[in-house]
């Protein structure tokens, strides 16, 4: 088997694509997801060491399955020494068994099990489905490797006893929602980094997009899966324009739109159009549609705010989420003027108490209305309460510029 491109990059892509499939085979055979996950991780590491030197094997997936099964055999044997299990589980898999099955979705559903906390589900998904090493995941979340290893191992313990199978029809929709939520969190973690000073940790956004593509490829007619993938693409398209020198935050209205990634926008728009036509509009589709309207405007002042306002209205009714209401208040301000937007925000104080975004939006709307002293006061209040360094710098700078 020979593949184009540099062997290193090929190997990594291939390994990560194979990871959940190999895990599926091994987990099914041994009926122990937690142990299988360890064995597959070791097989991936061995492949990453050997393949770039020895060349790709003829059947990479089969190679990985064999390596993982061998490792699994060692692991199980040491357990068996304690637990006295039968020997028949140790037979090698037949090649047909390896090639035909794609368990990516089964593994993903298990990793995003609603029993797990979001932090655990994210870590486990990135390792078992994404094929990232514990060290890489730890690095992305800026925690020590030992901490991340523990988080993953506790997540797996929690899944002991959970069946390795697709959820039944009665719970499929709810379980898919958990999966999409985890992918959404991974994307956001990368896009608006909640820790540290860097605004983008692209590797996490890129990984979320890769995983969303994998789900979409396997559930091509699900409109919310398409909606989430479209939302990610349409949001990620603006990334090149979202930061200025030294990681400074550039707000949507001030971005150089020529730097937006048009290929991602085209792909995202096509996805969302096709999804919406299929009916059953959901929240990811609505968010994607809003992102598409923003991406469609050549200049900020060309933005179709009335249409965005309508969509936030639907989204607000669908979710009851106060952050959506805050975004709707912005759309109201853009369509009907800042005074009406500010009025809506006053009603949100109880539902988002002390949230810096309330102050930040108030500041913008007061600025729109020409009330500089109030705008400055709210920019300062927002800066004092945000936990994002780039956002704080932006807000401090806005206050400073206006106060001149």
């Amino acid at each position: 088997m020979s593949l184009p491109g540099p062997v290193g990059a090929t190997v990594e892509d291939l390994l990560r694509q194979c990871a959940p499939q190999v895990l599926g085979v091994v987990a099914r055979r041994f009926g122990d997801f937690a142990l299988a996950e360890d064995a597959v991780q070791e097989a991936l590491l061995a492949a990453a060491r050997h393949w770039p030197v020895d060349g790709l094997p003829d059947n990479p997936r089969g190679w990985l399955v064999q390596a993982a099964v061998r490792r699994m055999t060692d692991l199980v044997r040491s357990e068996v020494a304690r637990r006295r299990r039968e020997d028949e589980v140790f037979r090698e898999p037949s090649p047909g068994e390896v090639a035909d099955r794609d368990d990516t979705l089964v593994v993903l559903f298990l990793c995003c099990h609603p029993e797990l906390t979001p932090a655990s589900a994210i870590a486990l998904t990135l390792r078992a489905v994404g094929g990232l090493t514990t060290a890489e995941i730890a690095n992305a979340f800026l925690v020590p490797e030992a901490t991340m290893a523990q988080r993953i191992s506790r997540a797996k313990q929690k899944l002991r006893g959970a069946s390795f199978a697709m959820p039944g029809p009665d719970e499929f929709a709810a379980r898919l929602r958990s999966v999409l939520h985890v992918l959404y969190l991974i994307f956001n973690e990368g896009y608006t980094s909640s820790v540290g000073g860097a605004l983008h940790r692209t590797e996490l956004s890129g990984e979320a997009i890769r995983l969303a593509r994998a789900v979409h490829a396997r559930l091509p007619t699900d409109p919310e899966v398409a909606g989430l993938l479209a939302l990610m693409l349409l949001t990620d398209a603006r990334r090149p324009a979202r930061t200025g020198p030294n990681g400074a935050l550039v707000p949507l209205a001030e971005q150089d739109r020529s730097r937006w990634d048009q290929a991602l926008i085209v792909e995202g728009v096509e996805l969302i159009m096709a999804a919406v036509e299929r009916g059953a509009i959901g929240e990811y589709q609505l968010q994607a549609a809003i992102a598409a309207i923003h991406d469609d405007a050549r200049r900020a002042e060309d933005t179709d705010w009335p249409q965005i306002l309508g969509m936030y209205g639907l989204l607000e009714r669908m979710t009851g989420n106060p952050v959506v209401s805050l975004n709707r208040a912005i759309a109201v301000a853009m369509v009907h003027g800042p005074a009406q937007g500010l009025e809506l925000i006053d009603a949100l104080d109880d539902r988002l108490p002390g949230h810096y975004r309330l102050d930040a939006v108030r500041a913008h709307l007061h600025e729109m209305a020409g009330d500089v002293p109030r705008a400055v006061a709210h920019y300062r209040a927002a800066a004092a309460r945000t936990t994002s360094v780039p956002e704080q710098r932006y807000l401090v700078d806005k206050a400073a510029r206006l106060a001149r």
Partner: protein
Amino acid sequence: MAKFLLLMNYGPATNCDLPMDQWAHEDIAAHIQFQHDLGKELTDNGELVDAQGLAGPELAKTVTFTGEGAPVITDGPFPESKELLAGYWLVDTTLERALEIAAKASAAPGPNGVPIGQPIEVRELMSAPASSDL
């Protein structure tokens, strides 16, 4: 080599008692560029272990629990408190160099480019005992 924690507190510096949100835009930009360059220098030298800024005192809570009843959780400490941590650098280097880095950080540019003279506290981390023949 040892590890040193360089602590920066809120509060008036020698040359500057104006909060940053009241500085001119250019002065803020110059200050951020300075911090960015300092971080890069420490990384490039292989000295930086970690550097973080803490979220504002408006979000701070203080927890006290004596084991009886419920824990007492209060807001603050507030910025009036003199010893209020704003951020830190953790560096792995010599004492001499740690003091040099602290001096540099202290002289970060403020309004009109004047070094602000922010006090930086240098604290060595405890470590394993040195080898000994005794």
